[in-house]
Protein backbone atom coordinates (compact mmCIF):
# COMPACT_ATOMS: atom_id res chain seq x y z
CA UNK A 1 0.00 0.00 0.00
CA UNK A 2 2.69 2.46 0.91
CA UNK A 3 5.09 1.65 -1.89
CA UNK A 4 3.04 3.15 -4.74
CA UNK A 5 2.85 6.73 -3.43
CA UNK A 6 6.55 6.70 -2.72
CA UNK A 7 7.17 5.65 -6.30
CA UNK A 8 5.09 8.57 -7.47
CA UNK A 9 7.01 10.97 -5.29
CA UNK A 10 10.25 9.65 -6.70
CA UNK A 11 8.97 10.16 -10.25
CA UNK A 12 7.98 13.71 -9.50
CA UNK A 13 11.20 14.50 -7.73
CA UNK A 14 13.33 13.38 -10.65
CA UNK A 15 15.47 16.42 -11.45
CA UNK A 16 13.84 18.24 -14.37
CA UNK A 17 16.06 19.69 -17.00
CA UNK A 18 16.50 23.38 -16.52
CA UNK A 19 15.37 25.82 -19.19
CA UNK A 20 18.97 26.56 -20.13
CA UNK A 21 19.81 22.88 -20.54
CA UNK A 22 16.80 22.27 -22.80
CA UNK A 23 17.63 25.35 -24.82
CA UNK A 24 21.26 24.40 -25.36
CA UNK A 25 20.41 20.77 -26.07
CA UNK A 26 17.96 21.94 -28.70
CA UNK A 27 20.49 24.37 -30.10
CA UNK A 28 23.15 21.68 -30.37
CA UNK A 29 20.69 19.25 -31.96
CA UNK A 30 19.59 21.76 -34.61
CA UNK A 31 23.19 22.75 -35.26
CA UNK A 32 24.17 19.08 -35.65
CA UNK A 33 21.38 18.58 -38.17
CA UNK A 34 22.40 21.68 -40.12
CA UNK A 35 26.09 20.71 -40.05
CA UNK A 36 25.29 17.23 -41.30
CA UNK A 37 22.84 18.48 -43.94
CA UNK A 38 25.31 19.13 -46.82
CA UNK A 39 26.77 15.65 -46.35
CA UNK A 40 23.35 14.14 -47.03
CA UNK A 41 21.68 16.62 -49.36
CA UNK A 42 22.47 17.15 -53.03
CA UNK A 43 24.34 20.27 -54.15
CA UNK A 44 21.09 21.93 -55.18
CA UNK A 45 19.38 21.52 -51.82
CA UNK A 46 22.55 22.45 -49.92
CA UNK A 47 22.64 25.67 -51.86
CA UNK A 48 18.98 26.36 -51.12
CA UNK A 49 19.55 25.65 -47.44
CA UNK A 50 22.53 28.02 -47.38
CA UNK A 51 20.41 30.68 -49.02
CA UNK A 52 17.64 30.15 -46.50
CA UNK A 53 20.17 30.70 -43.72
CA UNK A 54 21.33 33.94 -45.35
CA UNK A 55 17.77 35.23 -45.79
CA UNK A 56 17.14 34.07 -42.24
CA UNK A 57 20.02 36.20 -40.99
CA UNK A 58 18.60 39.21 -42.85
CA UNK A 59 15.17 38.60 -41.38
CA UNK A 60 16.62 37.99 -37.92
CA UNK A 61 18.41 41.34 -38.06
CA UNK A 62 15.15 43.05 -38.88
CA UNK A 63 13.44 41.15 -36.05
CA UNK A 64 15.57 43.16 -33.62
CA UNK A 65 13.61 46.19 -34.85
CA UNK A 66 10.20 44.67 -35.53
CA UNK A 67 9.95 42.22 -32.68
CA UNK A 68 12.03 43.81 -29.95
CA UNK A 69 11.94 47.57 -30.52
CA UNK A 70 8.50 47.67 -32.10
CA UNK A 71 9.56 49.45 -35.29
CA UNK A 72 8.69 47.89 -38.65
CA UNK A 73 11.50 48.57 -41.10
CA UNK A 74 10.70 48.49 -44.79
CA UNK A 75 14.25 49.52 -45.63
CA UNK A 76 16.41 46.54 -44.85
CA UNK A 77 17.22 46.07 -48.52
CA UNK A 78 19.44 49.16 -48.22
CA UNK A 79 21.62 47.58 -45.53
CA UNK A 80 21.64 44.23 -47.28
CA UNK A 81 22.55 45.88 -50.58
CA UNK A 82 25.24 48.09 -49.11
CA UNK A 83 26.75 44.99 -47.50
CA UNK A 84 26.72 43.35 -50.92
CA UNK A 85 28.30 46.29 -52.71
CA UNK A 86 30.78 46.81 -49.88
CA UNK A 87 31.93 43.22 -50.27
CA UNK A 88 32.08 43.73 -54.03
CA UNK A 89 34.28 46.80 -53.55
CA UNK A 90 36.73 44.85 -51.42
CA UNK A 91 36.77 41.85 -53.74
CA UNK A 92 37.26 43.95 -56.88
CA UNK A 93 39.88 46.40 -55.65
CA UNK A 94 42.09 44.28 -53.39
CA UNK A 95 44.02 41.45 -54.90
CA UNK A 96 44.11 38.65 -54.04
CA UNK A 97 40.46 38.89 -52.91
CA UNK A 98 40.23 38.49 -49.18
CA UNK A 99 37.13 37.14 -47.44
CA UNK A 100 37.64 38.98 -44.17
CA UNK A 101 38.30 42.26 -45.93
CA UNK A 102 35.06 41.75 -47.86
CA UNK A 103 33.19 41.31 -44.60
CA UNK A 104 34.87 44.38 -43.16
CA UNK A 105 34.01 46.51 -46.19
CA UNK A 106 30.47 45.19 -46.32
CA UNK A 107 29.92 45.93 -42.65
CA UNK A 108 31.36 49.41 -43.12
CA UNK A 109 29.00 50.06 -46.04
CA UNK A 110 26.00 48.80 -44.11
CA UNK A 111 27.03 50.78 -41.03
CA UNK A 112 27.25 53.97 -43.10
CA UNK A 113 23.80 53.42 -44.55
CA UNK A 114 22.43 52.48 -41.14
CA UNK A 115 23.86 55.60 -39.52
CA UNK A 116 22.22 57.76 -42.18
CA UNK A 117 18.87 56.01 -41.95
CA UNK A 118 18.94 55.80 -38.15
CA UNK A 119 19.69 59.49 -37.72
CA UNK A 120 16.63 60.60 -39.67
CA UNK A 121 14.11 57.85 -39.23
CA UNK A 122 14.27 57.28 -35.48
CA UNK A 123 12.58 60.63 -34.92
CA UNK A 124 9.45 58.98 -36.23
CA UNK A 125 7.23 56.24 -34.96
CA UNK A 126 5.02 53.46 -36.29
CA UNK A 127 3.96 53.84 -39.89
CA UNK A 128 6.00 57.01 -40.34
CA UNK A 129 9.09 55.02 -39.48
CA UNK A 130 8.07 52.28 -41.90
CA UNK A 131 7.50 54.72 -44.75
CA UNK A 132 10.70 56.66 -44.13
CA UNK A 133 12.86 53.56 -44.03
CA UNK A 134 11.22 52.48 -47.28
CA UNK A 135 11.96 55.80 -48.92
CA UNK A 136 15.53 55.82 -47.66
CA UNK A 137 16.14 52.41 -49.14
CA UNK A 138 14.82 53.76 -52.44
CA UNK A 139 17.35 56.61 -52.23
CA UNK A 140 20.14 54.05 -52.05
CA UNK A 141 18.51 52.10 -54.85
CA UNK A 142 18.35 55.13 -57.15
CA UNK A 143 21.95 56.03 -56.40
CA UNK A 144 23.22 52.51 -57.03
CA UNK A 145 21.04 52.09 -60.10
CA UNK A 146 22.13 55.31 -61.79
CA UNK A 147 25.78 55.58 -60.71
CA UNK A 148 26.88 53.21 -63.44
CA UNK A 149 30.66 53.92 -63.52
CA UNK A 150 31.05 52.81 -59.89
CA UNK A 151 28.22 50.37 -59.23
CA UNK A 152 27.77 48.90 -62.67
CA UNK A 153 24.24 50.33 -62.77
CA UNK A 154 21.54 47.96 -63.89
CA UNK A 155 24.00 45.12 -64.57
CA UNK A 156 25.57 45.17 -61.13
CA UNK A 157 29.05 43.87 -60.40
CA UNK A 158 30.52 40.45 -60.97
CA UNK A 159 33.55 39.17 -59.09
CA UNK A 160 35.22 35.95 -58.11
CA UNK A 161 34.69 34.27 -54.81
CA UNK A 162 37.54 34.71 -52.32
CA UNK A 163 39.20 31.74 -50.68
CA UNK A 164 38.04 30.63 -47.29
CA UNK A 165 41.00 31.65 -45.20
CA UNK A 166 41.71 31.35 -41.55
CA UNK A 167 45.06 33.10 -41.08
CA UNK A 168 47.95 30.64 -40.59
CA UNK A 169 45.57 27.70 -40.37
CA UNK A 170 43.52 27.17 -43.44
CA UNK A 171 43.31 28.42 -46.99
CA UNK A 172 41.23 26.75 -49.67
CA UNK A 173 38.63 27.36 -52.30
CA UNK A 174 35.04 27.45 -51.14
CA UNK A 175 33.06 24.34 -51.97
CA UNK A 176 29.31 24.06 -51.59
CA UNK A 177 29.82 22.28 -48.29
CA UNK A 178 32.36 24.65 -46.76
CA UNK A 179 30.28 27.61 -47.96
CA UNK A 180 27.35 26.13 -46.09
CA UNK A 181 29.38 25.56 -42.95
CA UNK A 182 30.84 29.05 -43.10
CA UNK A 183 27.39 30.64 -43.51
CA UNK A 184 26.02 28.43 -40.76
CA UNK A 185 28.83 29.48 -38.41
CA UNK A 186 28.19 33.17 -39.12
CA UNK A 187 24.42 32.83 -38.74
CA UNK A 188 24.70 30.82 -35.52
CA UNK A 189 27.17 33.30 -34.04
CA UNK A 190 24.89 36.18 -35.06
CA UNK A 191 21.95 34.43 -33.42
CA UNK A 192 23.82 33.98 -30.17
CA UNK A 193 25.02 37.59 -30.22
CA UNK A 194 21.54 38.95 -30.99
CA UNK A 195 20.03 36.71 -28.32
CA UNK A 196 22.53 37.99 -25.82
CA UNK A 197 21.78 41.58 -26.89
CA UNK A 198 18.05 41.16 -26.50
CA UNK A 199 18.51 39.68 -23.02
CA UNK A 200 20.94 42.36 -21.91
CA UNK A 201 19.81 45.49 -20.05
CA UNK A 202 20.06 47.27 -23.40
CA UNK A 203 17.65 44.77 -24.94
CA UNK A 204 15.29 45.20 -22.01
CA UNK A 205 15.16 48.94 -22.69
CA UNK A 206 14.36 48.21 -26.34
CA UNK A 207 11.50 45.95 -25.29
CA UNK A 208 10.30 48.58 -22.89
CA UNK A 209 10.24 51.07 -25.80
CA UNK A 210 8.14 48.55 -27.71
CA UNK A 211 5.70 48.16 -24.85
CA UNK A 212 5.37 51.79 -23.81
CA UNK A 213 7.54 54.47 -25.32
CA UNK A 214 6.33 57.52 -23.33
CA UNK A 215 6.81 55.65 -20.08
CA UNK A 216 10.32 54.55 -21.06
CA UNK A 217 11.12 58.17 -21.80
CA UNK A 218 9.59 59.25 -18.51
CA UNK A 219 11.76 56.80 -16.59
CA UNK A 220 14.71 58.66 -18.02
CA UNK A 221 16.03 56.63 -20.92
CA UNK A 222 17.16 58.53 -24.01
CA UNK A 223 14.73 56.70 -26.26
CA UNK A 224 16.05 58.15 -29.53
CA UNK A 225 19.59 57.05 -28.73
CA UNK A 226 18.46 53.50 -27.97
CA UNK A 227 16.47 53.41 -31.17
CA UNK A 228 19.42 54.64 -33.19
CA UNK A 229 21.72 51.99 -31.76
CA UNK A 230 19.05 49.40 -32.41
CA UNK A 231 18.68 50.44 -36.06
CA UNK A 232 22.44 50.45 -36.51
CA UNK A 233 22.92 47.06 -34.91
CA UNK A 234 20.14 45.68 -37.06
CA UNK A 235 21.69 47.28 -40.14
CA UNK A 236 25.08 45.70 -39.36
CA UNK A 237 23.66 42.19 -39.27
CA UNK A 238 21.64 42.87 -42.42
CA UNK A 239 24.88 43.98 -44.06
CA UNK A 240 26.55 40.78 -42.92
CA UNK A 241 23.78 38.84 -44.65
CA UNK A 242 24.46 40.92 -47.77
CA UNK A 243 28.15 40.03 -47.67
CA UNK A 244 27.35 36.34 -47.34
CA UNK A 245 24.93 36.51 -50.26
CA UNK A 246 27.48 38.34 -52.40
CA UNK A 247 30.18 35.79 -51.57
CA UNK A 248 27.88 32.88 -52.25
CA UNK A 249 26.57 34.16 -55.58
CA UNK A 250 29.63 36.10 -56.80
CA UNK A 251 27.67 39.15 -57.84
CA UNK A 252 26.06 42.31 -56.52
CA UNK A 253 22.94 43.58 -58.24
CA UNK A 254 20.69 46.60 -57.73
CA UNK A 255 17.62 44.33 -57.60
CA UNK A 256 18.58 43.37 -54.07
CA UNK A 257 18.58 47.00 -52.96
CA UNK A 258 15.07 47.39 -54.35
CA UNK A 259 12.36 47.56 -51.79
CA UNK A 260 10.94 44.11 -52.65
CA UNK A 261 13.84 42.59 -50.70
CA UNK A 262 12.72 44.57 -47.65
CA UNK A 263 9.20 43.35 -48.26
CA UNK A 264 10.38 39.74 -48.32
CA UNK A 265 12.23 40.37 -45.06
CA UNK A 266 9.05 41.57 -43.40
CA UNK A 267 7.15 38.58 -44.78
CA UNK A 268 9.71 36.15 -43.31
CA UNK A 269 9.31 37.85 -39.95
CA UNK A 270 5.54 37.78 -39.94
CA UNK A 271 5.28 34.18 -41.15
CA UNK A 272 7.90 32.85 -38.74
CA UNK A 273 6.91 34.91 -35.73
CA UNK A 274 8.34 38.23 -34.62
CA UNK A 275 10.25 38.65 -31.41
CA UNK A 276 11.71 35.15 -31.47
CA UNK A 277 14.89 35.60 -33.58
CA UNK A 278 14.53 31.97 -34.74
CA UNK A 279 11.08 32.58 -36.17
CA UNK A 280 12.36 34.74 -39.04
CA UNK A 281 14.73 31.94 -40.11
CA UNK A 282 11.83 29.49 -40.01
CA UNK A 283 9.77 32.01 -41.97
CA UNK A 284 12.50 32.35 -44.59
CA UNK A 285 12.69 28.57 -44.84
CA UNK A 286 8.93 28.25 -45.19
CA UNK A 287 8.83 30.95 -47.87
CA UNK A 288 11.72 29.60 -49.94
CA UNK A 289 10.63 25.99 -49.69
CA UNK A 290 7.04 26.86 -50.59
CA UNK A 291 8.34 28.81 -53.57
CA UNK A 292 10.53 25.92 -54.67
CA UNK A 293 7.68 23.48 -54.22
CA UNK A 294 5.30 25.60 -56.28
CA UNK A 295 7.90 26.08 -59.01
CA UNK A 296 8.25 22.27 -59.22
CA UNK A 297 4.53 21.58 -59.15
CA UNK A 298 3.25 24.32 -61.44
CA UNK A 299 6.31 25.38 -63.43
CA UNK A 300 8.79 28.23 -63.15
CA UNK A 301 6.33 30.80 -64.51
CA UNK A 302 3.81 30.21 -61.76
CA UNK A 303 3.16 33.43 -59.80
CA UNK A 304 4.11 31.91 -56.46
CA UNK A 305 3.73 35.25 -54.69
CA UNK A 306 -0.05 35.12 -55.10
CA UNK A 307 -0.61 32.06 -52.86
CA UNK A 308 2.20 33.18 -50.56
CA UNK A 309 0.59 36.61 -50.30
CA UNK A 310 -2.69 34.97 -49.34
CA UNK A 311 -0.93 32.87 -46.70
CA UNK A 312 0.81 36.02 -45.45
CA UNK A 313 -2.46 37.91 -45.04
CA UNK A 314 -4.13 34.89 -43.42
CA UNK A 315 -1.28 34.69 -40.90
CA UNK A 316 -1.63 38.39 -40.08
CA UNK A 317 -5.34 37.97 -39.45
CA UNK A 318 -5.53 34.55 -37.81
CA UNK A 319 -2.05 33.85 -36.43
CA UNK A 320 -0.56 37.26 -35.65
CA UNK A 321 2.21 35.69 -33.57
CA UNK A 322 3.50 33.66 -36.50
CA UNK A 323 4.44 30.00 -36.76
CA UNK A 324 6.76 30.11 -33.75
CA UNK A 325 4.55 32.44 -31.74
CA UNK A 326 3.69 29.67 -29.27
CA UNK A 327 7.36 29.44 -28.24
CA UNK A 328 8.00 33.17 -28.04
CA UNK A 329 8.01 33.46 -24.27
CA UNK A 330 10.13 30.36 -23.84
CA UNK A 331 12.73 31.39 -26.41
CA UNK A 332 13.22 34.77 -24.79
CA UNK A 333 13.66 33.50 -21.27
Amino acid at each position, binding site marked *: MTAAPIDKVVTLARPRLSHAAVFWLGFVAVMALLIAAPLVLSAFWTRLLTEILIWGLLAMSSDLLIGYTGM*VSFGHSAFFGLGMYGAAAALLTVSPPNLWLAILFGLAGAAGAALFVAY*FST*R*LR*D*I*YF*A*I*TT*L*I*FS*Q*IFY*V*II*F*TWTPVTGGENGLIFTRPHLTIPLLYNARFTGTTMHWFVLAVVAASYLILRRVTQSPFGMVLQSIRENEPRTRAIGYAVERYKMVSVMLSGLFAGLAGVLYAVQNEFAAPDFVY*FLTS*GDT*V*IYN*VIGGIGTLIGPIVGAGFFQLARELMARLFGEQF*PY*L*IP*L*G*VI*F*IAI*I*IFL*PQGLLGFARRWLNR
Partner: protein
Amino acid sequence: MGAIGDIVRSIPLDLIIIQTVNGFVTGMILALIASGLTLIFGIMDVVNFAHGELFMLGAYVGVVVIATTGSFWLGLVTSSLIVAILGAAMQIVTLRPLIGRDPLNTILATFGISLILQNYALWQFGPVARKIPEPMSSYFTLFYLQYPWYRIVIAGLSAAIIGAFWLFLKYGKFGVWIRATAQDRVMAQAMGIPVPLVYTGVFAIGAAMAAASGVLFAPLTGVDHSMGLDWVLKAFIVVVVGGMGNLGGSIAAAIFISLLESYAAIWVDPSQAVIVSFVVLILTLLFRPTGLFVATPR
Protein backbone atom coordinates in the same frame (compact mmCIF):
# COMPACT_ATOMS: atom_id res chain seq x y z
CA MET B 1 27.97 90.31 -60.30
CA GLY B 2 28.98 89.07 -63.70
CA ALA B 3 28.95 85.44 -62.54
CA ILE B 4 25.46 85.71 -61.11
CA GLY B 5 24.27 87.39 -64.29
CA ASP B 6 25.69 84.51 -66.31
CA ILE B 7 23.89 81.97 -64.17
CA VAL B 8 20.61 83.87 -64.45
CA ARG B 9 21.02 84.18 -68.21
CA SER B 10 21.94 80.49 -68.53
CA ILE B 11 18.56 79.44 -67.08
CA PRO B 12 16.48 78.57 -70.11
CA LEU B 13 13.24 80.45 -69.60
CA ASP B 14 11.32 78.50 -72.24
CA LEU B 15 12.33 75.21 -70.63
CA ILE B 16 11.25 76.49 -67.24
CA ILE B 17 7.79 77.35 -68.54
CA ILE B 18 7.44 73.99 -70.31
CA GLN B 19 8.51 72.17 -67.18
CA THR B 20 6.12 74.22 -65.07
CA VAL B 21 3.25 73.01 -67.24
CA ASN B 22 4.58 69.42 -67.11
CA GLY B 23 5.06 69.56 -63.37
CA PHE B 24 1.58 70.91 -62.88
CA VAL B 25 0.05 68.08 -64.92
CA THR B 26 1.87 65.31 -63.02
CA GLY B 27 1.18 67.21 -59.80
CA MET B 28 -2.55 67.07 -60.38
CA ILE B 29 -2.46 63.32 -61.08
CA LEU B 30 -0.31 62.78 -58.00
CA ALA B 31 -2.73 64.90 -55.98
CA LEU B 32 -5.59 62.68 -57.13
CA ILE B 33 -3.74 59.54 -55.97
CA ALA B 34 -2.50 61.10 -52.75
CA SER B 35 -5.88 62.47 -51.74
CA GLY B 36 -7.29 58.93 -51.77
CA LEU B 37 -4.32 57.73 -49.73
CA THR B 38 -4.56 60.55 -47.21
CA LEU B 39 -8.33 60.13 -46.94
CA ILE B 40 -7.96 56.45 -46.12
CA PHE B 41 -5.30 57.26 -43.57
CA GLY B 42 -7.17 60.18 -42.03
CA ILE B 43 -10.38 58.23 -41.53
CA MET B 44 -9.19 54.69 -40.88
CA ASP B 45 -5.59 55.01 -39.66
CA VAL B 46 -4.69 52.64 -42.48
CA VAL B 47 -1.60 53.22 -44.58
CA ASN B 48 -2.70 51.68 -47.81
CA PHE B 49 0.36 50.07 -49.33
CA ALA B 50 -1.79 48.68 -52.11
CA HIS B 51 -2.79 52.11 -53.34
CA GLY B 52 -0.28 52.05 -56.17
CA GLU B 53 -1.61 48.66 -57.22
CA LEU B 54 -5.15 50.05 -57.33
CA PHE B 55 -3.78 52.77 -59.61
CA MET B 56 -2.09 50.14 -61.77
CA LEU B 57 -5.14 47.88 -61.84
CA GLY B 58 -7.33 50.85 -62.74
CA ALA B 59 -5.07 51.50 -65.71
CA TYR B 60 -5.27 47.84 -66.80
CA VAL B 61 -9.06 47.72 -66.52
CA GLY B 62 -9.05 50.91 -68.57
CA VAL B 63 -6.85 49.21 -71.19
CA VAL B 64 -9.23 46.26 -71.45
CA VAL B 65 -12.42 48.33 -71.59
CA ILE B 66 -10.97 50.77 -74.11
CA ALA B 67 -9.74 47.91 -76.28
CA THR B 68 -13.22 46.34 -76.35
CA THR B 69 -15.45 49.42 -76.54
CA GLY B 70 -13.12 51.97 -78.08
CA SER B 71 -14.34 54.70 -75.77
CA PHE B 72 -11.81 56.29 -73.44
CA TRP B 73 -14.38 57.98 -71.23
CA LEU B 74 -16.39 54.79 -70.81
CA GLY B 75 -13.12 53.13 -69.81
CA LEU B 76 -12.49 55.81 -67.22
CA VAL B 77 -15.90 55.41 -65.58
CA THR B 78 -16.02 51.60 -65.77
CA SER B 79 -12.51 51.25 -64.39
CA SER B 80 -13.29 53.53 -61.43
CA LEU B 81 -16.42 51.55 -60.63
CA ILE B 82 -14.79 48.13 -60.92
CA VAL B 83 -11.78 49.10 -58.83
CA ALA B 84 -14.08 50.74 -56.26
CA ILE B 85 -15.91 47.42 -55.86
CA LEU B 86 -12.59 45.60 -55.65
CA GLY B 87 -11.39 48.08 -53.03
CA ALA B 88 -14.53 47.57 -50.97
CA ALA B 89 -14.09 43.79 -51.18
CA MET B 90 -10.43 44.14 -50.14
CA GLN B 91 -11.39 46.23 -47.16
CA ILE B 92 -14.09 43.82 -46.02
CA VAL B 93 -11.97 40.70 -46.36
CA THR B 94 -8.60 41.86 -45.05
CA LEU B 95 -8.88 45.14 -43.18
CA ARG B 96 -12.14 44.72 -41.31
CA PRO B 97 -10.81 41.85 -39.17
CA LEU B 98 -7.86 44.07 -38.26
CA ILE B 99 -9.88 46.99 -36.86
CA GLY B 100 -8.74 47.64 -33.32
CA ARG B 101 -5.35 46.02 -33.80
CA ASP B 102 -2.05 47.86 -34.00
CA PRO B 103 -2.09 50.03 -37.19
CA LEU B 104 1.16 48.33 -38.21
CA ASN B 105 -0.87 45.22 -38.98
CA THR B 106 -2.77 47.11 -41.64
CA ILE B 107 0.40 48.25 -43.38
CA LEU B 108 1.52 44.61 -43.48
CA ALA B 109 -1.84 43.37 -44.74
CA THR B 110 -2.06 46.00 -47.48
CA PHE B 111 1.52 45.16 -48.43
CA GLY B 112 0.39 41.55 -48.87
CA ILE B 113 -2.48 42.74 -51.05
CA SER B 114 -0.13 44.81 -53.18
CA LEU B 115 2.08 41.75 -53.75
CA ILE B 116 -0.90 39.68 -54.81
CA LEU B 117 -2.32 42.32 -57.16
CA GLN B 118 1.04 43.09 -58.72
CA ASN B 119 1.83 39.46 -59.40
CA TYR B 120 -1.68 38.87 -60.66
CA ALA B 121 -1.24 41.71 -63.16
CA LEU B 122 2.13 40.34 -64.26
CA TRP B 123 0.65 36.87 -64.67
CA GLN B 124 -2.49 38.05 -66.44
CA PHE B 125 -1.13 40.77 -68.71
CA GLY B 126 2.52 39.83 -69.07
CA PRO B 127 5.61 41.99 -68.64
CA VAL B 128 5.18 44.05 -71.84
CA ALA B 129 3.78 47.54 -71.30
CA ARG B 130 0.35 48.25 -72.83
CA LYS B 131 -0.49 51.49 -74.54
CA ILE B 132 -3.67 53.53 -74.50
CA PRO B 133 -4.06 56.05 -77.33
CA GLU B 134 -4.69 59.60 -76.19
CA PRO B 135 -8.41 60.31 -76.44
CA MET B 136 -7.82 63.67 -78.13
CA SER B 137 -5.07 64.48 -80.54
CA SER B 138 -5.15 68.28 -80.80
CA TYR B 139 -2.06 70.27 -79.96
CA PHE B 140 -1.20 73.85 -79.20
CA THR B 141 2.13 75.51 -79.70
CA LEU B 142 4.27 76.10 -76.63
CA PHE B 143 7.52 77.70 -77.79
CA TYR B 144 9.04 75.07 -80.08
CA LEU B 145 6.86 72.22 -78.78
CA GLN B 146 3.53 70.92 -80.00
CA TYR B 147 1.98 70.52 -76.57
CA PRO B 148 -0.93 68.06 -76.40
CA TRP B 149 -4.16 69.51 -75.09
CA TYR B 150 -4.81 66.15 -73.47
CA ARG B 151 -2.31 66.85 -70.72
CA ILE B 152 -4.05 70.07 -69.84
CA VAL B 153 -7.36 68.20 -69.84
CA ILE B 154 -5.92 65.63 -67.40
CA ALA B 155 -4.92 68.35 -64.99
CA GLY B 156 -8.36 69.95 -65.29
CA LEU B 157 -10.16 66.63 -64.84
CA SER B 158 -8.10 65.70 -61.79
CA ALA B 159 -8.84 69.10 -60.29
CA ALA B 160 -12.53 68.60 -61.07
CA ILE B 161 -12.61 65.15 -59.42
CA ILE B 162 -10.85 66.47 -56.33
CA GLY B 163 -13.17 69.48 -56.25
CA ALA B 164 -16.26 67.32 -56.59
CA PHE B 165 -14.95 65.10 -53.84
CA TRP B 166 -14.40 68.10 -51.61
CA LEU B 167 -17.96 69.32 -52.22
CA PHE B 168 -19.20 65.81 -51.47
CA LEU B 169 -17.31 65.79 -48.16
CA LYS B 170 -18.65 69.21 -47.31
CA TYR B 171 -22.31 68.86 -48.29
CA GLY B 172 -23.13 65.22 -49.10
CA LYS B 173 -24.80 63.14 -46.39
CA PHE B 174 -22.22 60.39 -46.67
CA GLY B 175 -19.53 63.06 -46.76
CA VAL B 176 -20.73 64.43 -43.46
CA TRP B 177 -20.68 60.90 -42.06
CA ILE B 178 -17.10 60.55 -43.22
CA ARG B 179 -16.03 63.78 -41.58
CA ALA B 180 -17.85 62.89 -38.38
CA THR B 181 -16.11 59.49 -38.27
CA ALA B 182 -12.76 61.16 -38.84
CA GLN B 183 -13.35 63.51 -35.94
CA ASP B 184 -14.63 61.06 -33.36
CA ARG B 185 -15.22 57.46 -34.21
CA VAL B 186 -16.98 56.45 -31.01
CA MET B 187 -19.25 59.48 -30.91
CA ALA B 188 -20.16 59.02 -34.57
CA GLN B 189 -21.15 55.44 -33.85
CA ALA B 190 -23.19 56.56 -30.86
CA MET B 191 -25.04 59.01 -33.10
CA GLY B 192 -26.11 56.16 -35.34
CA ILE B 193 -23.60 56.54 -38.13
CA PRO B 194 -22.78 53.09 -39.54
CA VAL B 195 -19.01 53.37 -39.02
CA PRO B 196 -18.04 50.04 -40.68
CA LEU B 197 -19.98 51.09 -43.78
CA VAL B 198 -18.21 54.45 -43.74
CA TYR B 199 -14.85 52.64 -43.62
CA THR B 200 -15.72 50.46 -46.58
CA GLY B 201 -17.12 53.44 -48.47
CA VAL B 202 -14.01 55.51 -47.85
CA PHE B 203 -11.81 52.69 -49.08
CA ALA B 204 -13.96 52.32 -52.20
CA ILE B 205 -13.82 56.05 -52.91
CA GLY B 206 -10.05 56.13 -52.45
CA ALA B 207 -9.69 53.12 -54.75
CA ALA B 208 -11.90 54.74 -57.39
CA MET B 209 -9.79 57.90 -57.30
CA ALA B 210 -6.61 55.86 -57.70
CA ALA B 211 -8.15 53.96 -60.62
CA ALA B 212 -9.32 57.16 -62.30
CA SER B 213 -5.84 58.65 -62.08
CA GLY B 214 -4.44 55.39 -63.45
CA VAL B 215 -6.62 55.58 -66.56
CA LEU B 216 -5.97 59.29 -67.03
CA PHE B 217 -2.23 58.81 -66.73
CA ALA B 218 -1.97 55.67 -68.85
CA PRO B 219 -1.75 57.41 -72.28
CA LEU B 220 1.32 59.35 -71.14
CA THR B 221 3.65 56.45 -70.33
CA GLY B 222 1.95 53.11 -70.92
CA VAL B 223 0.75 50.53 -68.44
CA ASP B 224 2.83 47.82 -66.79
CA HIS B 225 2.58 45.78 -63.64
CA SER B 226 5.22 47.70 -61.70
CA MET B 227 3.96 51.23 -62.39
CA GLY B 228 2.14 51.33 -59.06
CA LEU B 229 5.29 51.19 -56.96
CA ASP B 230 6.80 54.44 -58.19
CA TRP B 231 3.54 56.24 -57.70
CA VAL B 232 2.75 54.88 -54.29
CA LEU B 233 6.20 55.95 -53.11
CA LYS B 234 5.66 59.44 -54.48
CA ALA B 235 2.21 59.53 -52.94
CA PHE B 236 3.68 58.50 -49.56
CA ILE B 237 6.20 61.33 -49.79
CA VAL B 238 3.43 63.75 -50.70
CA VAL B 239 1.23 62.58 -47.88
CA VAL B 240 4.01 62.86 -45.30
CA VAL B 241 5.17 66.24 -46.61
CA GLY B 242 1.62 67.56 -46.75
CA GLY B 243 0.71 66.17 -43.35
CA MET B 244 -0.93 62.78 -42.89
CA GLY B 245 -4.69 62.99 -43.24
CA ASN B 246 -4.62 66.60 -44.45
CA LEU B 247 -6.35 66.80 -47.84
CA GLY B 248 -5.41 70.39 -48.73
CA GLY B 249 -1.82 69.83 -47.60
CA SER B 250 -1.51 66.72 -49.77
CA ILE B 251 -2.71 68.55 -52.87
CA ALA B 252 -0.36 71.47 -52.29
CA ALA B 253 2.53 69.09 -51.57
CA ALA B 254 1.78 67.04 -54.70
CA ILE B 255 2.04 70.09 -56.94
CA PHE B 256 5.05 71.44 -55.06
CA ILE B 257 7.01 68.19 -55.34
CA SER B 258 6.08 67.57 -58.96
CA LEU B 259 7.18 71.08 -59.92
CA LEU B 260 10.49 70.60 -58.11
CA GLU B 261 11.07 67.28 -59.87
CA SER B 262 10.26 68.82 -63.24
CA TYR B 263 12.71 71.65 -62.70
CA ALA B 264 15.37 69.21 -61.52
CA ALA B 265 14.81 67.19 -64.69
CA ILE B 266 16.11 70.16 -66.72
CA TRP B 267 19.59 69.56 -65.34
CA VAL B 268 19.76 65.91 -64.32
CA ASP B 269 18.43 62.62 -65.60
CA PRO B 270 14.70 62.16 -64.78
CA SER B 271 15.46 58.99 -62.81
CA GLN B 272 17.75 61.02 -60.56
CA ALA B 273 15.27 63.88 -60.25
CA VAL B 274 13.38 61.64 -57.81
CA ILE B 275 16.13 62.34 -55.30
CA VAL B 276 14.87 65.93 -55.08
CA SER B 277 11.60 64.73 -53.60
CA PHE B 278 13.52 62.47 -51.21
CA VAL B 279 15.49 65.51 -50.06
CA VAL B 280 12.27 67.48 -49.56
CA LEU B 281 11.00 64.60 -47.46
CA ILE B 282 14.13 64.50 -45.31
CA LEU B 283 14.06 68.25 -44.75
CA THR B 284 10.38 68.10 -43.86
CA LEU B 285 10.99 65.30 -41.38
CA LEU B 286 13.83 67.23 -39.82
CA PHE B 287 12.15 70.58 -39.42
CA ARG B 288 8.39 70.00 -39.60
CA PRO B 289 7.81 66.33 -38.82
CA THR B 290 4.02 66.63 -38.88
CA GLY B 291 4.00 68.05 -42.40
CA LEU B 292 4.72 71.33 -44.13
CA PHE B 293 1.19 72.63 -43.80
CA VAL B 294 0.39 71.57 -40.27
CA ALA B 295 1.71 73.46 -37.27
CA THR B 296 4.22 71.32 -35.38
CA PRO B 297 2.94 70.71 -31.88
CA ARG B 298 5.41 71.90 -29.28
